């Protein structure tokens, strides 16, 4: 038996693949920014918010971390219209990704904040900074720097998880791979190419974020 692989018929579809890559990166970038902001806000709540709010955020974190992303996505896309919230596939994907990343980011950032010595926050207070200023300028930057690699890993996991979004016809990379194989029946080659692209994306996004994080996002030149 001979197996003939025909990668040329996939690679000639490069404009499609490229648009898939842009969608995947765009979805990831958007949900990473909002997800980390959600994570910071909720981490603050879990450490110094009022008791009932702590409980709500804690339940959210545990519920999201213990259910599969695909179910969260299907719930957003198929379930929410029953409540009158009709979402496009792209919007449902972003919302599900933000909800998912937000829960993990909350836990990661909370761990970072708790690892920051109390004395630093107290020193901030003694300089007559407001609670908000202490959190944003004293507590948060070193906490983020400490957990940044973990946060980057989680962002990569969310990016790879976004392959599922193609199932509700968000035009990202795995959707494109599916589209190509439905046209030329080269399923194996098509998914091999998509998988290789995902691998390159994962490696380069991780390198980029690990490089850029300490330089641009928090704390400036000291890192």
């Amino acid at each position: 038996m001979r197996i003939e692989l025909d990668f040329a018929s996939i690679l000639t579809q490069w404009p499609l693949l490229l648009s898939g890559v842009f969608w995947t990166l765009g979805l990831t970038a958007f949900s990473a920014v909002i997800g980390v902001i959600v994570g910071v806000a909720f981490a603050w709540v879990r450490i110094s918010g009022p008791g009932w709010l702590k409980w709500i955020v804690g339940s959210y974190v545990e519920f999201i971390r213990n259910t599969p992303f695909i179910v969260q996505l299907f719930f957003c896309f198929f379930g929410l219209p029953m409540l009158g919230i009709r979402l496009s596939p792209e919007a449902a994907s972003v919302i599900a990704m933000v909800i998912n990343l937000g829960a993990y980011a909350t836990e990661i950032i909370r761990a970072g904040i708790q690892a920051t010595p109390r004395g630093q926050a107290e020193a901030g207070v003694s300089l007559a900074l407001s609670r908000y200023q202490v959190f944003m300028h004293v507590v948060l930057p070193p906490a983020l720097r400490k957990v940044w690699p973990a946060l980057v890993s989680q962002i990569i996991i969310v990016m790879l998880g976004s392959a599922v979004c193609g199932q509700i016809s968000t035009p990202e990379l795995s959707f494109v791979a599916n589209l190509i194989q439905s046209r030329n029946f080269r399923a194996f080659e098509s998914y091999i190419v998509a998988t290789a692209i995902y691998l390159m994306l994962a490696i380069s996004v991780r390198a980029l974020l690990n490089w850029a994080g300490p330089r641009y996002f928090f704390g400036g030149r000291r890192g």
Partner: protein
Amino acid sequence: MVEFTLWDIVRNLLLAARWTVLLSLVAFVGGGLVGLGLLILRMSGVRGGARFVAGYVQLFQGTPLLMQLFLAYFGLALFGLELSSWVSAGFALTLYTSAFLVEIWRGCVASIPKGQWEAAQSLALNFGEQLRYIILPQAVRIAIPPTVGFLVQVVKGTALASLIGFVELTKAGTMITNATFRPFLVYGCVAVIYFLLCYPISFYAKSLEGKIHARS
């Protein structure tokens, strides 16, 4: 037209959840065995062994599980194997699980002080004996909490097997949705069942971790 009561929905989902549990166990046990083999290869000092395992881990951790499942499904068929979704899903999830477990366990073995290896060598134990009697008993103790914790990822990972036609909890949810037109309720129930499966495992892993920290 047949009316579905809430109990009908929940009952059918619970029946399907058996397959989620079973597939998780297959992947976890299979992944554990393959992972152990990779761990031994990694530590044995065989030429290229460490590099192979590093590449393997990078490959499976750096690509979407969904793509791995599709490749297993379409790829194995290409070799003329007439495959059920069972075999493809079990195969892909086993490899995926093994890549994560070998990385977790490698960290645990690396945390055993070097002196333990040297002491074992000085007792003229060979590599297998060093592992068997000195290193693994200590490493296993540290490895249990993160390994149990990873089981949650495996259970959640099996949800993707629904996309290659494996009828488990998520797929059953989709099928029941198509019959009842009540996605909010059905996917809500699906999520709750996953939560009831996974949360106790997460909780147990966390309490094990707490115990280890308390001891040391």
